[in-house]
């Protein structure tokens, strides 16, 4: 199920503004990759190009290739809807559908494209996904209550359950813990560790310890100055990035001596 991602010479534009330039990166299947870097360097922008979510933003476009197990996401005739059903995304702010119950939130993606699912299959899938998101025990008695009634951390795990319920190949997470308390953060980090057994996970984070704790490889992005494009500076094993980076800027950033 899990697939690898290879990015070749990717440029991302917002209108005429080149936001991210010349990214080449190879992300292994069944691994956790962290993107770190200063604010505004294009981490979110780049992450969104991995499942074509950037197309939702006005004026955003890309040049280059993103290969999912060798298939180019940007080849002619590829439907972004198909891409997104295989590459799921979890956002910075928890966003369960407020008018849906917890159960319906988990099933939201599964019921798309007129797919039918029997009640017993649905029940099984809800339980499996919520188990997978470490949320089952907390919500099993109130599956029919609204998802918006959960705590922030629970909502975020609900969003992760919703993302894994469609059994994607890859899960992208954009600062999934930045709105959460330390305990919820740990719960989500534990979850990410478990997810990599089945999924390819890419996570953007501002929290160095988090990157060090959860990821196998780390990519450092940087920006030369305001209005300049963001670039991938260094990409290596997380251990190497944090203990023995080969680029000075990386070392400055991870040691907090930035700017």
């Amino acid at each position, binding site marked *: 199920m899990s697939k690898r991602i290879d990015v070749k010479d990717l440029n991302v534009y917002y209108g005429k503004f080149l936001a991210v330039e010349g990214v080449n990166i190879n992300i292994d299947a069944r691994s956790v990759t962290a993107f770190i870097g200063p604010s505004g360097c294009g981490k979110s922008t780049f992450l969104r190009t991995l499942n074509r*979510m950037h197309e939702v933003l006005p004026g955003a476009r890309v040049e280059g290739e993103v290969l999912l197990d060798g298939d180019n996401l940007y080849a002619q005739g590829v439907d972004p*809807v198909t891409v997104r059903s295989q590459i*799921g*995304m979890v956002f910075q702010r928890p966003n369960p559908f*407020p008018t*849906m119950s917890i159960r319906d939130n988990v099933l939201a*993606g599964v019921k*798309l*494209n007129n797919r039918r699912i029997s009640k017993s299959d649905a029940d099984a899938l809800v339980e499996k996904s919520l188990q997978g998101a470490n949320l089952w025990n907390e919500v099993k008695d109130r599956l029919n209550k609204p998802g918006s009634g959960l705590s922030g951390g629970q909502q975020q795990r609900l969003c992760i359950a919703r993302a894994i319920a*469609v059994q994607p190949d890859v899960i992208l997470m954009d600062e999934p813990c930045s709105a959460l308390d330390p305990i919820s953060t740990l719960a989500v980090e534990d979850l990410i560790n478990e997810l990599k057994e089945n999924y390819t996970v890419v996570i953007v984070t501002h929290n160095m310890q988090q990157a060090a704790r959860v990821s196998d490889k780390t990519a450092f992005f940087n920006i030369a100055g305001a209005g300049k494009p963001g670039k991938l500076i260094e990409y290596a094993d997380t251990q190497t990035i944090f203990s023995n980076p080969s680029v000075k800027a990386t070392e400055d950033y991870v040691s907090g001596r930035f700017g």
Partner: protein
Amino acid sequence: MSSNSLTSAGASGRTGDKVFSGFALGAGALILLVLFSVATFLVVQAAPTFVANPSEVAGGEGFWKYILPLVLGTVIAAAIALLIATPVSVGVALFISHFAPRRLAQGFGYIIDLLAAIPSVVYGAWGVAFLAPAMAPGYQWLADNAGWFPLFAGPASATGKTILTAGIVLAVMVIPIVTSLSREIFLQTPKLHEEAALALGATRWEMIRMAVFPFGRPGVVSAIMLGLGRALGETMAVALVLSSGPLIASLIRSGNQTIAAEIALNFPEATGLSLSTLIAAGLVLFVITLAVNMLARWIVGRHKEFSGAN
């Protein structure tokens, strides 16, 4: 004086607060006062009708016999208008908010807002001069081919001045209002939820069903209620378009009448008891509007827990 410095420091900064809360309270009270005095006026003026000898009230059989067909006529016309206007308005609003290219959407939006400002006489004139004659052959066809169905029973009106035509004219009048409000609401759908749907692999239409409609539902119901208010209370357009008569089931024959149009047509010559009867009719319209609004609030409120407000 005051030994506690916290108590004295707080008071000075509150003037703005006090002025504003006083103002808000005053405005609220004023609205209630106006509503109350209108209601009192209506009740006092209408009272003679309810106590009068039934044979003296218009129609000669008492007020309720007189008003019932008008109530039904009003409801039929408004129902036709909303049945047509709701899907069209929601569709157009969605097109503007989520489908049309930005430039086109803006132009479209302006045109819709302009349409909302056209006076009702103009719609009425359009209804008699253009729509009614244009509909007449269609009514004839309906009477010939679907005449067994009570709503389309013949003989069809030759002029086309029927309750169905009036309902369509009302729909056209209501559409700009409902569209304009719905569009504003759809545009405010949180990006967060739209993106949540798209990231799951939803198509645009699925995203609209998952994120836009649930968010916009209460607002759209309010918009429809405003439109309904206009449809129920419309006098000129209906008076012009409908060639009125007694209550009948067929939508394509001349006949039926609405409360508002009845009041408008008879008001100039009304005195004494007949004036009082018309005001009583107005009171009934008031009650219908209130009832429909409460029903709509109740429908929206049923799923409060899931409204996303928490």
